């Protein structure tokens, strides 16, 4: 039996299953699709297409990274993706996001995250490129000629953060170093009781008039 025949037979077997048991197949496909939809929903899937730092906080283990960024001057000008995702072209950007995201989701699901999260090689390259993207002028100095700069492939030279160690995430990076890191909350800071009280008060005042 050659390969084409195997493929052909499986294909026709599939078709005949669908013809024979349409109800069973529809139910099965529905279950799988439904489960996929649940996953898309509970994982905030579409947020991953954006650049919002809140997205990275979908996994709470990023609390330390979020909190330290929130307390640094970089919060004024950058989001997580500005530094940690290649910004030179859109295809590269989304490829990187997809690759990184897949690895993250598998590590996170298997609970394989290390106590102190360290950056990977591809990540180093992206961050390094992004440092240079904004701080371009700093590289005009003859002291920073290209041969002194880090080469990710040969691991020679220096990276920006080999000296600027605390920029911007500080020196404490363990998962437990920020027990109460504030996760960004998008909801209003005016509590419900106050909204209700004010409505009542305003109604009272307009009645008076």
């Amino acid at each position, binding site marked *: 039996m050659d390969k084409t025949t195997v493929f052909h037979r499986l294909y026709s077997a599939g078709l*005949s299953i669908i013809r024979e048991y349409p109800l069973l197949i529809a139910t099965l496909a529905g279950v799988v699709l439904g489960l*996929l939809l649940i*996953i898309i929903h509970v994982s905030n899937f579409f947020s991953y297409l954006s650049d919002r730092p809140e997205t990275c906080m979908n996994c709470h283990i990023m609390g330390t990274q979020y909190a330290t960024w929130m307390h640094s001057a970089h919060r004024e000008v950058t989001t997580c993706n500005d530094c940690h995702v290649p910004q030179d072209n859109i295809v590269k950007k989304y490829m990187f996001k997809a690759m990184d995201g897949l690895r993250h989701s598998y590590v996170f699901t298997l609970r394989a995250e290390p106590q102190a999260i360290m950056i990977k090689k591809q990540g180093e390259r992206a961050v390094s490129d992004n440092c240079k993207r904004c701080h371009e002028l700093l590289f005009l100095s003859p002291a920073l000629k290209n041969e002194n700069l880090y080469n990710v492939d040969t691991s020679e030279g220096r990276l920006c953060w080999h000296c600027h160690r605390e920029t911007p995430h500080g020196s404490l990076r363990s998962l437990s170093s*920020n027990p109460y890191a504030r996760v960004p909350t998008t909801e209003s800071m005016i509590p419900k009781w106050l909204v209700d009280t004010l409505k009542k008060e305003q109604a009272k005042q307009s009645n008076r008039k």
Partner: protein
Amino acid sequence: MSDINEVIRKKPWIGWSIFLVSMVTVFVLGLFAASIMERRTEALVAYTPAKPIPDFEPRLKVWGENFPREYVTYLKTQETNFVTKYNGNDVKDALEEDPLMVVLWAGYLFSRDYNRPRGHLYAIEDIRKTLRTGAPKDAHDGPQPNTCWSCKSPDVVRLMQQMGPMEFYKGKWASKGHEVVNNIGCLDCHDPKTMNLTITRPALVEAFQRQGVDITKATHAEKRSLVCAQCHVEYYFKGEDKYLTFPWDKGITVEDIEKYYDSINFVDWTHALSRAPMLKAQHPEYETWKMGIHSRRGVSCADCHMPYISEGGIKFTDHHITTPLKTINRSCQVCHRESEEELKQNVYTQQDRVMELRMKAEESLAKAHIEAKLAWEKGALEAEMKPVLTLIRHAGWRWDFAVASHGASFHASTEMSRVLGTSIDKSGKARVILARILAKHGVSEEVTMPDLSTKAKAQKFIGLDMNALKAEKDIFLNEMVPKWDEQAKIREEKY
């Protein structure tokens, strides 16, 4: 086309494979969904207090059991051990330091007693002790309304939620002394369920509503200033109800607020010497911070006054709210690269310059008040004095605006210099007109100034009997206050 049943009958493994593949797919997807849900719940649990905090719990200790680091650092607001060039956290008599203020506030309670600000954990003690709240003999006595409690305690949140702000503000200050006993605490800024930053004072929400500003979409960084803006702002008590109101409808600059007050003919008090319809600035910290470069660059109150701190491998927000001059390393050097000493001197240089103008503004304004007093005594007419009094009102307001917010000389030093400049300009103009009025009524030589070198002399000059005021206050503190605490203790045992 072969029949599938036939195929499976012939090769049962195909049937089993189909069954297995479907089962594994559904199992793995289900597992994945469950895992995501589980980890999402984990995130919720991580930030939820281990020991639930009841709604509207005003007592610090109950919250502190869940958040020991934040609690212990917050307790440090009780310290009185740090002095900067112009302020600090210990008790110091500001009128003794600068007796001219006694004259500038003649006829107003601030001329009796005004101290350097202390930490949040002195809120209740200090408002009870100050002579500005008088010496009530019963619940319906005394110079101040309940509105004065508004910023002093998380008990206010508890009461506002029960009775609404209008009812809360009603009545004399002494009538809620037994209700409001806990110092400013967690509930004032935090949601007890989620620990999110939250606004608990209606005045701030109402002020933004009237301006048409939507703060429900405030960012995290903005929230870190807005919680402070609940109290550290300019405010007034509106109308008969003494309804706490922020005068921001026309904007938050010194001129905008002045225009607002003029448009509603608001008067804090009539000056005892010049009879000018005066305005008292409270403590426009939020407004003056807004006018400065740090605000412009997105630095929030908490960034400097509650910097991050690392202790034993843990990072958290230092809840010891105090001057950043005490925490230069964690507050300033996070962004600035200069030495601590250099940064401190930079702050002092800005403050020195504003201070110089402040003293000139006070001197000119005090002279205007005293000259106006003489003009009235020499028979000046209302119509003659009207432009003078308006100029004095505005000069006094602008001086007070720059001074009342203790941090303004740093938060917005150029703007405060400008504001003090306009104060000097206005009191100067008032004095030019006064010189003409005085000449018309027979006074051609310079008006001699009284000796105002100490607080006692200044208070005597404006006619205050300080001994009587202090004696009354002692009776109040020894007789009424212990009863308040007793009643509160009985109530809190039932929580």
